[in-house]
């Protein structure tokens, strides 16, 4: 069963306006790789050259920031939800 990825408005220009994507993957890293394969140009906007998330990108699994979990190795259950959001809000 696939994983749902929620795309923030700021990235929808790269997904043809799509707010959600359905991809396969067992970890956040695999899910994001599958998402990049679907949409050209997304990888550079989310990842730095070192393959890690850019410092102002937040990714959540089940509502929890993956920095509190296992980062890109965080497991994602089938049917689960991964949310990408900008980090610069608030304060």
């Amino acid at each position, binding site marked *: 069963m696939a994983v749902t990825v*929620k795309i*923030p*408005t*700021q*990235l929808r*220009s790269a997904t043809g306006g799509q707010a959600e994507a359905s991809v396969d993957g067992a970890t956040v890293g695999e899910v994001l790789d599958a998402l990049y394969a679907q949409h050209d140009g997304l990888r550079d*906007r*989310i990842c730095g050259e070192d393959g890690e998330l*850019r*410092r*102002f*990108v*937040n990714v*959540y699994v089940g*509502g929890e*920031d993956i*920095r*509190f979990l296992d980062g890109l190795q965080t497991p994602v259950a089938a049917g689960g939800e991964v*949310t990408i*959001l*900008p*980090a*610069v*809000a*608030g*304060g």
Partner: protein
Amino acid sequence: MGATNLRCRECGTSYGLEARYVCEQCFGPLEVAYDHQGLADDRDLLRRRIQAGPQNIWRYSDFLPLEAPPGPSGRVLSRVGLPAGCTPLIRADRLAERLGLGEVWVKNDAHNPTHSFKDRVVSVASQRARELGFDTLACASTGNLANAVAAQAAALGLPSYVFIPADLEEQKILGTGVYGTNLVKVRGTYDDVNRLCTEISGERERWAFVNVNMRPYYAEGSKTLAYEIAEQLGWSTPDRVVAPIASGSLFTKIAKGFSEWLDLGLIDGAVPTMNGAQATGCSPVAQAFAAGTDVCRPVKPDTIAKSLAIGNPADGPYAVELARETNGSVDAVTDDEIRAGIRMLAETTGIFTETAGGVTAATLAKLAARGDIGADERVVLVITGDGLKTLDAVRGTFESHEIEPRFDDFEARVEEGVHA
């Protein structure tokens, strides 16, 4: 207006002055860029214009990102909103003496309409929101911003939605709901509230979230603290500023305010040494500073300083950089030190501050004890909020005398108790 565009702090990509806060290329934060060159032609004239301006932040309109700032003649509440700023800067000799310091000033921003510095940022964000055609104000708040947005929306006659963590101090909840806002208590931390508001702001295009999609404009409001301090010190900078850090926005924008005026030659001095203050129970920026990195690893807050309880600070990396560049620091203090800081400030200045001010005062005490502050330094302590907002922090910290309404009981229980 002097504002020209929005620019990404990370990659430099430029955008128009619209409701946008994140760079589409790299997700970096957007900041307002200005062209102030025209202002440098006659500095005396500019100083006189500022001095002749209203007794609020609109005297600094030349440096704020608005097309039609309220201006000196604006007295219509529904147009100008609640006036913020022009708060007292008080020389605190007894505080200085207590800490063995030469010269300490307290910038008391509890004097704003809703008793915290947040009225500054909300004033700018709400004016810009109206210029951009939004019809609703909203925010994610740790409390002070909730008060400010609810009140400002009431003054301007706009509907508002205020999102707070459900466990916020009762005083801050009551002081928000009274304005007739739509108060939304979210079961979670401030960072959860913030995440939710980031999502909602993407889906509700008519809403101006002051600290999400309006954030570049909102943040500019904090510069007015620096302008006021410089103006109140006779057009010069202090040597050192001690200010609290939650997201890091206030801390970095104070320095930006001084820098802008120094670049224009409007004031004497240099960018002050910047000391940031956090609570140990939520100190991602202090931890990054101590570790020598600019990566602020998010934390789960656990502190009485709820207005500073942001575990994932948006401007954390920039706050660390600024502290380093100015030979400052970012320190953290415990909840007991926070209570002692509130008490110290109250006893030596008559100013009763909330827990965030306790963090800042305790950090000043820590810097003094560590010998970081020179005897000839002029130090400004930025007090951002009022003690009446966090009364629980002082409960049980002092004794009182309960007596019968009789003179002998007064003598026996109060005077003899005092002299014993």
